[in-house]
């Protein structure tokens, strides 16, 4: 596998993606179901209360998902790892379903009950998966992934039961597809700390993430305190994913595609991989949300549907191109 860009080009690409992101944010301010006179944009409530927070939230969710994708793929040494692999999604889905179906009214850190319960259940799921896969103080990545898959299957069964018993298919299903339609400043403020701190932690450990590429034993002999770093990184990635899930539901593919795509471009050095994936994830989400809002306006397509529709074919294309390149 040949990477496309060298170090300087990777730095340049980061700058380019940054400006693309700024441009995309700027353009999507003007897009939406409500027609606003462009000259009056900054005087309208729709802009300040709905569009602005929504675009920012889209960018933040993109950041959260792509960073946790990079981190989990690195720590678990599994190219299939995405932010949902450890059962975050499954737990979150149950939490949201309970909130929607039973109308539970809790408020945590200013979050309404759906995001709050989704967040709590996501974390509970990750803690369970981690504890279940721990064997004599060590966690093998394969066990972790398998435990995540098993718990997810169990959670889907519970979710199906909740849907059947309460008959809330439409609203729960809509949440599962992922959407930013309920974006608000409160949500932006709740996820910002996770995005910044989580991103900081990931970048802080980029040297260790590079060592993990050679396997855990090699990482040990290169001076990495493997078990500790693994725990910190998995915890950070899970918190970031749970935060994203709580405000946007399940948006697939961002955390899987973005890191793979960037790896093809700049190789496996996390010093470049993390910043560039972050910006690309943000850009992708802003664009996808703009499409979701406008393509069949005034109705909205769930952003998860947009991502999967565009994401899956693109991912397959990447995969085939890469396999061909290897021959």
């Amino acid at each position, binding site marked *: *596998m*040949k*990477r496309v860009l060298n170090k300087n080009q990777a730095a340049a690409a980061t700058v380019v993606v940054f400006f693309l992101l700024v441009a995309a944010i700027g353009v999507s301010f003007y897009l939406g179901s409500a027609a606003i006179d462009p000259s009056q944009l900054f005087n309208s409530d729709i802009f300040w209360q709905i569009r602005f927070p929504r675009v920012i939230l889209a960018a933040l969710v993109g950041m959260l998902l792509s960073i946790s994708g990079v981190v989990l793929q690195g720590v678990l*040494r599994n190219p299939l790892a995405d932010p949902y692999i450890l059962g975050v999604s499954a737990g979150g889905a149950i939490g949201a379903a309970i909130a929607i179906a039973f109308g539970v009214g809790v408020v945590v850190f200013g979050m309404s009950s759906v995001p709050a319960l989704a967040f709590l259940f996501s974390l509970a799921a990750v803690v369970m998966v981690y504890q279940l896969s721990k064997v004599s103080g060590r966690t093998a990545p394969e066990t972790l992934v398998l435990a995540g898959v098993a718990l997810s299957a169990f959670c889907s069964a519970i979710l199906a039961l909740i849907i059947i018993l309460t008959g809330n298919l439409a609203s729960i299903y809509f949440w599962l597809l992922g959407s930013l339609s309920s974006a608000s400043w409160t949500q932006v403020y709740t996820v910002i700390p996770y995005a910044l701190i989580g991103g900081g932690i990931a970048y*802080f450990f980029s*040297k260790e993430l*590079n*060592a993990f*590429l*050679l*396997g855990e*034993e*090699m990482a*040990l*002999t*290169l*001076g*990495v*305190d493997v078990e500790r770093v693994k725990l910190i990184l998995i915890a950070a990635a899970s918190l970031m994913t749970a935060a994203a899930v709580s405000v946007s539901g399940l948006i697939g593919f961002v955390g899987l595609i973005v890191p793979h795509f960037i*790896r093809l471009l700049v*190789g*496996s*050095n996390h*010093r470049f991989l993390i910043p560039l994936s972050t910006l690309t994830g943000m850009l992708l989400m802003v664009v996808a949300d703009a499409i979701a809002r406008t393509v069949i306006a005034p109705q909205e397509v769930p952003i998860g549907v947009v991502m999967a529709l565009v994401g899956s074919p693109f991912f397959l294309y990447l995969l085939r191109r890469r396999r061909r390149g*290897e021959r």
Partner: protein
Amino acid sequence: MTLQVEKLTCGYDRKKPVSRELTFEVKEGEFVGIVGPNGCGKTTMLRTISGILKPFAGSLSIGGQLVEHLSRQELARKVAFVPQIMEPVEGFTVEDMVMMGRLPYLERFAFETAEDQEAVNWAIEQLRIENLKGRMIDELSGGEFQRVMIARALAQEPKLLLLDEPTSHLDIRYQVKICKLMRRLRSHCSLLATFHDLNLASRFCTRLILMSRGEIVADGAPADVVTAENIWKVYRIKVDVKKSSKNDKVRYVLLP
């Protein structure tokens, strides 16, 4: 720098240790070969010295410092390990891979310094793989890959280099090449490596340690370790040991 191993007991299960009470030294400038049948505990011992496994009992010290008192990073600046089998990696050039050896020296947020680049260039030079520098790691042949992995370990600027069967899976040309290289490296660090090929080991090592069932059976100059009697004792194979008249090197031949 001297490695001192004292009454080292190690393995995977505390109740059933693989090796018991191993005691030996590797002095500066030595190239010590560990030989013995499959499952005698060679690799386990090497993995324990490298810090991958924790010893169950006994002590390890390097240059007079107890290994348990060193942080992982400090240990990684003294001891480097070349495993027999590496998990497959992709997305790296040969130079990137050798640069990985500089991790124990990298500052948290800093990029590689000129000093790191120098160490990498030196390691690449030592292994004579300048021509591979820009190649992708997953495109290399077995012999090329082994040399890159040794270069990566050398970039760690270790005082002690551990190698687990560095010559297995290689054709005889590369076996000899790698052995000559290891012998040359003695001026930079002590070496401790496991071998299956007794003839190769006794040809190039300065000293041999013969292990059997987790214990050291013989330790000394190759000519004193590779004897018909020892080989019968450990492998249950009848051999004839011949000594070269030119340089005192020994080699065994199977008896018909």
